[in-house]
């Protein structure tokens, strides 16, 4: 069937901010869809609140709305744009839920918008567990026995039938939010309460446990002619009971016979037909009983998912792109396979390598969180590795995580066998390393299997790796056969060095001397049956290297690796722009990255893609082979930056700002000298190599001080300490200080305004991209604070001074490319906090706000173009204002406090854009999942220092008709100012109802709570935690509260309007 001609304009909905369970993969899928649909001549309207995405680049769609992803706001876009169709399957669960809401509230019918890809009944059948179960039974497939509960009593009744343990799955939640496992009645009670709370419809599924069964996934595609193909099978290393997002996963399935695999394939095909997903990709999960092969269906995602992104990268089959084409009427056999060019997309990829995906967790950021892995996803990112064997892929995946781990080694030593057994039995982030340790201690596969239920095939492969370590140790580096085998098993040079007592570079030298070098193979969808035309490569140690370098000038871009807090999609965005810019310049763009979620690892993005770990060894392999003009390390965040010095030492040319300039900005002493030389102020500071030194510095510059280890990103272990006792605790608990690892002690500029400036420089000219004023005062990590561009409260003269200092610093450092500077403004004085001569997290936000692709320009500058040649010589004045707000994963981590500080905790960001600052702020809050109320009760509880500020806030709220509720202390102050306040008990006072009761009853519409510093903070912890679980909008800073109130005022005056980026940026 050819493409449909009855539709012209298609609406695509993105997935919003990066959260746990929904990351870059939906930027990848959305971007592919935009490209595919426009290639076919359709007009694409896109809505997404996440500015850090490639899909929201104004060139990607015809109309790009960076607006809140709520049914009301998307309805406004529909009313304005009148698309004929909505493609709901490419924006994750968020996009799908929104489409369902718009279908159900009649918006789609009202405007004549057709759902393409998946219709409402199919979506409901797949998403509603009860309907899904019925559908499975109708086609003769088994599902775990289960029942639906709306109360604890109903849940107990079901458990009576299916027996413990049971799995609790709340309906309509994301990434398994609210899911848990109950082994006994007490746990059941807790699990049901938690589950009912998180389900938007207040129902949970109570299900027979298939914990310990083998878990598989199939990626399925279907077209309008009912042709169905399986793109990829995935086997989870961790058995059932661990969310697949938290499992190590392997493609293809390793331990199924063909007979069993084909039964699963038949089931998948029957399922997609029965559910009625018309076109596109779906993901189906199965559990298999290892004792007898019994197959049960777990669930189906009737949309492109995280696993689809993984499957696309694992096979080279672009699921999202093909899904988009199928949605507009093409059939699989009408679409060409890009890689082979000659064969059609109606086939099943076959691969001749093994793929391992390894999750990356961020528990170090949330030490209070329970680190047990369950059915609720907790990881924030993932790395994928490709090898010719599982062993090689696993070891490559481990070093791809960039956690300073180079093999199957433990982070910290384990105690006795009992501790080891517990760590094997209870799923946790370290488990695979504990398995290796168990083998080292002589434990048998059988016992490890009994404890972990991880398939013995995987265990035995780990055993082989562990056993080979001994061989490496005894052979040393003298035995080429052993060394070659070690490399084939995926051992890093660094790990081999550890085992042989020598350095990474020494191992490299020796093995190159023995002729043992990496060879590169192609990912080609077909196991080499056909010639491949897309150089999508991975390294291995085989005989043949099949990708000779081209003769074109080329540049290597180092990506940012797995997502983590502090380094995510923003940096991938910059790397993708670098690739686009290189292509525009006619330079071959070579991308190196290992994050399967990203646009950068789409084989379409660059001219050559190396899916490889970002370590010195792996990067040197590529650079030595490719001989590029240079390497770009500015864009991928800390990952490539860490490699700058070792690469330069190895003689690799780096493009852009010199590494000496980077060092001047990072080395504390050289940095101080730089600022002094320019007459720029810096907060008093010092470097401490011991506790005594730290105390001395703090006393000299005066408390409070900001303390942190040197060389960190995302504010890791950064704290504000208020007195000597606090400082001692920090030095004792949070960091290990040593002469090699000094601590930076800075005077904390209390109550100062923080400002971020991003600029671009070509060595001579400096142009400021944007000046961003933080909403929250100093003390909150810049990645966690909201900010406005242009500044909303600064005077023109202040902004001019900031720009002048930025230019002076960029010139002095000889910046070629991007620079980010963080300033603090206190009592009219400007202090420089930090200078980062590289792409910052705010580059995509600024680029979207001002309509200039800064990363692209910076790449061109690095290749020798001047800003004058590029036509960017003046700052862009804008008539609108953009607000960035951070999004946090607190709901996933029960027991974690939500107070913000100097350590970054957010996973993602949203942007609100409007011509009115207050409206832009309201939009940013709405997008961040915190819709501001216009009536109801507001709860206020502030620390003593904020009592004065709270009076103003309360007055304005009362004037707008809100009812005030406060704890006794705050209430007293407000009453004194003539306001009527309902007094409510603090939780600690023991009286009921207390504030938490009120929140649980849904009586509180808004919450302002500025907690005391340090220990006193615990009192109000429960209030904030309840706000998170009850989804009550809350503010923990006075500045945030004030901005919120401004927003509410504007909301009461007029409702929100939507406008596209293209309109904002239209130049007369």
């Amino acid at each position, binding site marked *: 069937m050819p493409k449909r001609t009855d539709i012209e304009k298609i609406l695509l909905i993105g997935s919003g901010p990066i959260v746990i369970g929904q990351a870059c993969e939906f930027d990848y899928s959305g971007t592919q869809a935009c490209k595919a649909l426009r290639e076919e001549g359709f007009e694409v309207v896109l809505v997404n609140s996440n500015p850090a995405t490639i899909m929201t680049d104004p060139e990607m769609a015809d109309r790009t709305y960076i607006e809140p992803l709520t049914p009301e706001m998307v309805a406004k876009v529909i009313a304005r744009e009148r698309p004929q169709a909505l493609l709901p399957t490419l924006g994750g669960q968020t996009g799908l839920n929104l489409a369902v809401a718009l279908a159900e509230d009649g918006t789609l019918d009202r405007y004549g918008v057709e759902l393409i890809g998946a219709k409402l009944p199919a979506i409901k059948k797949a998403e509603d567990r009860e309907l899904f179960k019925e559908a499975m039974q109708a086609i003769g497939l088994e599902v775990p026995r289960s029942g639906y509960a709306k109360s604890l009593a109903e849940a107990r009744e079901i458990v009576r039938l299916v027996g413990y343990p049971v799995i609790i799955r709340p309906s309509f939640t994301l990434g398994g939010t609210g899911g848990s496992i109950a082994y006994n009645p007490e746990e059941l009670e807790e699990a049901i309460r938690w589950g009912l709370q998180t389900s938007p419809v207040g129902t949970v599924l109570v299900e027979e446990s298939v914990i310990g069964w083998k878990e598989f996934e199939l990626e399925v595609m279907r077209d309008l002619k009912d042709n169905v193909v399986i793109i990829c099978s995935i086997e989870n290393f961790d058995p059932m009971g661990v969310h697949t997002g938290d499992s190590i996963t392997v493609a293809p399935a390793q331990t199924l016979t063909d007979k069993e695999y084909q039964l699963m394939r038949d089931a998948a095909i029957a399922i997609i037909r029965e559910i009625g997903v018309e076109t596109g990709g779906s993901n189906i999960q199965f559990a298999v009983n290892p004792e007898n092969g019994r197959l049960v269906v777990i669930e189906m995602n009737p949309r492109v998912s995280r696993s689809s992104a993984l499957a696309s990268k694992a096979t080279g089959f672009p699921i999202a792109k093909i899904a988009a084409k199928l949605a507009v009427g093409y059939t699989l056999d009408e679409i060409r396979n890009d890689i082979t060019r000659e064969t059609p997309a109606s086939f099943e990829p076959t691969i001749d390598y093994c793929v391992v995906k390894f999750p990356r967790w961020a528990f170090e950021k949330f030490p209070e969180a329970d680190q047990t892995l369950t059915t609720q996803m907790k990881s924030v990112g993932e790395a994928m590795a490709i090898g*010719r064997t599982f062993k090689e892929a696993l070891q490559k995946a481990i070093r791809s995580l960039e956690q300073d781990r180079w093999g199957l080694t433990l982070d910290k030593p384990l105690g006795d066998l009992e501790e080891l057994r517990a760590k094997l039995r209870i799923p946790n982030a370290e488990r695979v390393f504990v398995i290796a340790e168990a083998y080292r201690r002589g434990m048998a596969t059988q016992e490890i299997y009994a404890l972990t239920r991880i398939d013995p095939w995987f265990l035995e492969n780990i055993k082989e790796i562990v056993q080979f370590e001994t061989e490496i140790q005894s052979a040393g580096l003298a035995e080429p056969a052993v060394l070659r085998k070690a490399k084939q098993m995926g051992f890093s040079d660094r790990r081999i060095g550890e085992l042989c007592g020598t350095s990474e570079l020494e191992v490299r030298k020796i093995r190159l001397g023995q002729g043992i070098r990496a060879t590169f193979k192609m990912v080609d969808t077909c196991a080499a049956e056909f010639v491949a035309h897309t150089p999508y490569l991975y390294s291995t140690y085989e005989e*043949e290297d099949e990708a000779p370098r081209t003769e074109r000038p080329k540049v290597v871009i180092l990506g940012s690796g797995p997502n983590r807090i502090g380094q995510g999609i923003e940096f991938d965005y910059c790397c993708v722009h670098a690739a686009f810019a290189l292509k525009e310049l006619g330079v071959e763009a070579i991308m190196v990255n290992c994050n399967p979620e990203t646009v950068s690892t789409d084989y379409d993005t660059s001219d050559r893609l190396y899916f490889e770990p970002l370590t010195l060894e792996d990067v040197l392999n590529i650079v030595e082979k490719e001989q590029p003009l240079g390497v770009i390390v500015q864009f991928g965040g800390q990952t490539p930056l860490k490699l700058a010095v070792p690469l330069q030492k190895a003689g690799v040319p780096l493009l852009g700002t010199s590494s000496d300039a980077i060092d001047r900005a990072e080395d504390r002493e050289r940095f101080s000298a730089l600022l002094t030389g320019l007459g720029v102020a810096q907060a008093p500071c010092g470097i401490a190599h011991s506790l005594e030194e730290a105390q001395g510095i703090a006393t000299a510059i005066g408390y409070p001080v900001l303390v942190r280890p040197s060389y960190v990103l995302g504010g890791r272990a950064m704290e504000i300490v208020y007195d000597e006792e606090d400082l001692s605790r920090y030095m004792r608990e949070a960091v290990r200080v040593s002469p090699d690892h000094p601590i930076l002690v800075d005077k904390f500029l209390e109550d100062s305004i923080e400002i971020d400036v991003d600029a671009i420089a070509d060595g001579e000219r400096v142009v400021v991209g944007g000046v961003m004023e933080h909403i929250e005062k100093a003390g909150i990590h810049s990645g966690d604070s909201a900010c406005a561009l242009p500044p909303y409260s600064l005077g023109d003269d202040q902004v001019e001074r900031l720009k002048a200092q930025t230019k002076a610093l960029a010139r002095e450092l000889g910046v070629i490319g991007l620079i980010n500077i963080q300033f603090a403004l206190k009592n009219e004085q400007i202090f420089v906090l930090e200078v980062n001569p590289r792409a910052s997290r705010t580059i995509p936000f600024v680029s979207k706000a001002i309509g200039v692709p800064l990363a692209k320009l910076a790449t061109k500058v690095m290749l020798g173009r001047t800003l004058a040649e590029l036509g960017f010589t003046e700052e862009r004045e804008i008539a609108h204002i953009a607000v960035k707000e951070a999004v946090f994963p607190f709901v996933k981590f029960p027991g974690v406090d939500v107070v913000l500080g100097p350590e970054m905790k957010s996973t993602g960001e949203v942007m609100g854009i409007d011509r009115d600052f207050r409206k832009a702020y309201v939009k940013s809050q709405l997008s961040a999942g915190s819709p501001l109320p216009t009536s109801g009760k507001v709860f206020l509880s502030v620390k003593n220092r904020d009592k004065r500020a709270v009076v103003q806030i309360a007055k304005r709220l009362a004037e707008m008709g809100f009812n005030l509720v406060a704890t006794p202390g705050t209430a007293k102050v407000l009453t004194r100012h003539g306001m009527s306040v309902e007094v409510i008990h603090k939780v600690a006072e023991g009286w009921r109802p207390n504030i938490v009761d009120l929140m649980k009853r849904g009586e509180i519409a808004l919450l302002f709570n500025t907690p005391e510093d340090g220990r006193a903070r615990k009192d109000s912890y429960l209030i904030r935690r309840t706000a998170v679980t009850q989804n009550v909008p809350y503010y923990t800073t006075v500045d945030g509260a004030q901005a919120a109130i401004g927003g509410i005022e504007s909301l009461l005056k007029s409702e929100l309007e939507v406008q596209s980026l293209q309109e904002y940026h239209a130049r007369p």
Partner: protein
Amino acid sequence: MKKPALLALADGRVFRGESLGAEGEATGEVVFNTAMTGYQEIMTDPSYKGQIVVMTYPLIGNYGINDEDVESRRPWVEGFVVKEASPTPSSWRGRRTLDEYMREQKIVGIQGIDTRALTRHLRDHGAQEGVISTEELDPERLAAKAQASPGLIARDLVREVTIRAPHGWDEATWDRVRGYREPPAPRFTVVAFDSGIKRNILRQLVSVGCKVTVVPAFTPTAAVLEQKPDGVFLSNGPGDPEGVPYLIEAVRGLLGKVPIFGICLGHQIIGLAAGGRTYKLKFGHHGANHPVKDLAAGKVEITAQNHGFAVDPDSVKARGLELSHVNLNDGTCEGLRHRDLPVFSVQYHPEASPGPHDANYLFHRFADLIERAKGG
């Protein structure tokens, strides 16, 4: 360390690896198979007689060898080539390792070589003769041996794999709980020529209601007609279809007298019996992911394939056979149907095993054809 082994191709390319399975020497045409599962079925498929099979998926033997997943009475591959054979398989049905099985069955293999490089070489230079050896480790001498070996063209390998005397069949398709099921009550009788027939074809035939008599490939027309079967089935088998003139002759006598269904070699035999032409493909189709379009329905099925020869559809057009299925990768003929007679055939493997079940409908189509022929 395992014993060293060498694989030499007729054109001189040599791969060094380690011994897998039996020690010794094996000669055959080297072909690659891109299926990721089903190595046990592949090894026991008689169509591989005369061939050394390279598995493109690098990790083979993960689920071991079981007692059920066999397609004939023994393995037939001359040699087996893998990147890494699992020494410690895991499956609830697994009984022994790949290496143990190959030793028992005296199959010579090689592991630890760059199978992707080998595959690319075969793709670019064509399938060719090769020798695996654990004895002759001199590359030049081994390559000379490969060059000297006879090849497949016009050789009769069918005679080496077919049965000596007719027999019946009463095992139906597999499921997890019951294993191979009891067949339903038969509705009609079918004579199945065994040119190296895969058991799953027989299981499929009895599952759709055929009472099957399996006969040797050299059974003449008269002996078949004597049995007054409701239908005749022509099986898959090894080598060049032109190497089995007696079978072509027998089929020529059956055309128009009884409904006929052919698979793989059987399909090629029908083409030749009708007066058409077959030719050798550069490296053949061996795998489980080939897209085939059913031209009548316009639908695509993912198929299991294993053939090195193909029918030239233009050569049979005038003989009443029209193209019914086409390979979407390279446009080759995948199926024929007679315009007037109850005869149809496919080049690929609807019985799967290993491979997808998409084309299973063809066995029902055969049953319907027989039913119509009986009724009319």
